[in-house]
């Protein structure tokens, strides 16, 4: 595990951000990641949210010696590194969407990392309300490791990754299915895989057990931040299990309404859970699932409904922990 990056800044940020809603948006320069960012702004509206934009550039390992040297030369010439160009474009999008209020204070930090003199770069923008935007250009052995490092070192309430296409097919942009799968599997917190994400279609929360009901409560709070309507869905694999599915819907509705959020509608169905969820879920902004119950070594050999939905869904999927 790498040592803490921007340690001093992080301490300050943690202090500052202990009661704030922290969103991490992974940027890869693609159109999808910009759509994911737009959704982050919608969730982060109000003055209690901070957004961190992260671009990970893989470490120059193996025989790729010289890339570090080239990057150092680019910096010496005053040329921006490719990741910073993508981050600045995303920052401009945040400015256009009015995420920061009026004037802001700008700060730059650079730290050597993994023996690379160019290392990690961070730019922070803070407005008079204390709202932060941080642009982080990080170096890591691979993109997934960089995202996981960042999430390990700083507590984020929501991590957004954007990817185009289903599963391993038709993936444009630098964030591929392999990266997404690793991040979602290893992450300790809530992850939203933004895939052709569209606002205002609501969250379809899938429930079946106590864990998913707690996840439903958490997502309802999240959805209320962006005034997104909430729907419930439960799938029974057989007719005999239908009563349990209906019971899960009732429990989830009670928990969500107790948190002060209205459930617009709910359904139960019988069939293959992953297929039914993908089919019904395609009309919503986000399909919400609880983290898989398949852990550790078993995950290497065995899939789960949550990961099947994540891989094969047509639209965005949020895994809640």
């Amino acid at each position, binding site marked *: 595990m790498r040592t803490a990056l921007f340690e001093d800044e992080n301490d300050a940020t943690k202090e500052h951000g202990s*009661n704030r*809603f922290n969103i991490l948006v992974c940027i890869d*320069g693609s159109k999808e990641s910009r759509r994911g960012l737009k959704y982050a702004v919608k969730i982060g509206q109000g003055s209690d949210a901070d957004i961190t934009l992260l671009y990970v550039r893989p470490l*120059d*390992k*193996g*025989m*790729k*010696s*010289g*890339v570090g*040297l*080239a*990057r*150092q*030369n*680019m910096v*010496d*010439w005053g*040329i921006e*590194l*490719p*990741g910073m*160009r993508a981050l600045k474009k995303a920052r401009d999008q945040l400015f256009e969407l009015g995420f920061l209020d009026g004037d802001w204070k700008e700060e730059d930090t650079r730290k050597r990392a993994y*023996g690379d*003199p160019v290392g990690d770069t961070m730019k922070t923008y803070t407005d008079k309300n204390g709202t932060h935007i941080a642009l982080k250009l990080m170096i890591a052995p691979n993109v997934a490791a960089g995202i996981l490092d960042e999430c390990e070192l700083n*507590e984020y*309430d929501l991590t957004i990754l954007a990817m185009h296409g289903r599963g391993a097919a038709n993936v444009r942009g630098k964030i591929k299915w392999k990266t997404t799968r*690793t991040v979602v*599997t*290893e992450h*300790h*917190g809530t992850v939203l895989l933004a895939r052709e994400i569209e606002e205002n279609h609501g969250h379809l929360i899938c429930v079946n057990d106590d864990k998913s009901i707690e996840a439903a*409560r*958490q997502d309802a*709070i*999240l959805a209320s931040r962006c005034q997104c309507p909430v729907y419930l869905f439960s799938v029974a694999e057989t007719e005999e299990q239908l009563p349990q599915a209906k019971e899960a819907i009732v429990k989830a509705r009670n928990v969500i309404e107790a*948190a002060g959020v209205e459930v617009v509608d709910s359904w139960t169905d019988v069939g293959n859970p992953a297929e039914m969820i993908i089919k019904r879920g395609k009309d919503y902004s986000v399909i919400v699932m609880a983290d898989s119950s398949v*852990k*550790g*070594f*078993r*995950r*290497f050999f065995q899939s789960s409904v949550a990961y099947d939905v994540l891989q094969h869904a047509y639209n965005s999927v949020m895994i809640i*922990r």
Partner: protein
Amino acid sequence: MALFTTRRSRRFRLRGTRNLRSAGYFLREKRWLIFAMIVGMLLYMAPVPDGLTYAGKTVLVISVVAVILFVTEPVPLPAVAFMIVIAQILMLKDVDSKQVAESLMSDSVLFIMGSLMLAVAIVKQKLDKRLAYLIVRMTGTKTLNVAVGIALVSGLMASVIGEHTVAAMMLPVAIILITLTSEDPKKVRGLAAVLLFSIAYGCSIAGIGTPSGGARNAIMIGYWKEFFYHGDEATKQYLVDYVSWIKVCYPVFLAQLPFVIGILFMTFKPEYKHLNRAVVRLRTQVEKEGSMKSSDWIAILVFFLTLLGWIFYSSELGLGTIALLGAVTYMVLGLVRWEDLNSGVNWGVVWLYAAAISLGIQMKDSGAALWVADSFIGILPSGMDSGIGLYASVSALTTIVTNTMSNGAAVAVLGPISLNMATTAGESPLILGYITAISSAFAYLTVIGTPACTIVYASGYLKTTDFLKVGWKMVIMSTLVLLAFAMFYWPAIGL
């Protein structure tokens, strides 16, 4: 809000499962290591094929596992190097640690170490802006001329120093020209591709120009000496010196240069025929640097003395000794600090080449290289097992291998095999050696093919598919030029 207040405690609970999760993560990340080990075990348990010794089979097993690990990189490549060393000591009965340690350090390895240090020392002199000035003064503002200038200067430099150094120095020049033409990358896609590939392919085709152009050349020179030179007059031709190499290989580089530019312009069609505004602004930027300082001149002088040392004394002193002398001179004169060299040199590369060369020597000593060479020739169709057919086969094999791993590693692995093929087929080991070394530069198809390709890709202007789009044309062109030289020019100069 409840969601946020419970997060910290949940995190701590989840930490308990972190190790289990990481085990699944570890298995996924290391799947190629597991695959390589299973393949290795199966091959090791298989019966010894006819004509191969037990030691030869063991060396081949180590080689196969190493190649899988070179290509897939599930562990850091220096770790693969150490695994090769450990496997040789533990698995080969007649080899002890002293012998393996001795085989790790040769003149080729000293050369690789010295040239990597020289590269850092040269980059630290910040001569890239001078080079940029030289190019734009020489070429004017026409896009075609600028591309020719960039490819030529990159090539001339990459023929004597490592291509990664040259690419690292030239990259900012190309990016400045691109960004000064248009800030919007979409409007300069073709221009960016032409200028960046002029650097990458300029470096690739030139790296074979002289022995100091790349590790692969030094490795091949080392193999010729190790395998064929017996200290007598009859085998002295296998002690290839700097000038002999240049006579054979430099024309191959120069002949390819116009074709490279033609292919790039036909493939990418730059949006701008002239770069007036960009060139003028680049000139202004570069002129701010002022005139050359005395330390700049001394740095250039030291490099030229090193070059002269390679030309006139490499056959007696070895390429490696002179490279180290050059690097030490930079340090003694205070032109570069040890700290800069230490952090700038990828020492893992040195270990990797050392281990690969050591394995290459074991392949020859155990008879494994000869067995592979015989088997390869045996499966070639009639007409392809000698003469130009064999040259084309060896070139094709090397091109495939070099596109999946570094060109130095490709030569280290394939060198002993192709040299043994020459012996079996009754061909000249020198010709097949040159063909292997030169073909190892045809890594045009992938981003990771050569350090120069990786560096230009790091600019963010190119897509991985661009390498395929232009790379296959480059492979065909370079192969045809190489075979033409092997058929007509090399016999004419008595090779």
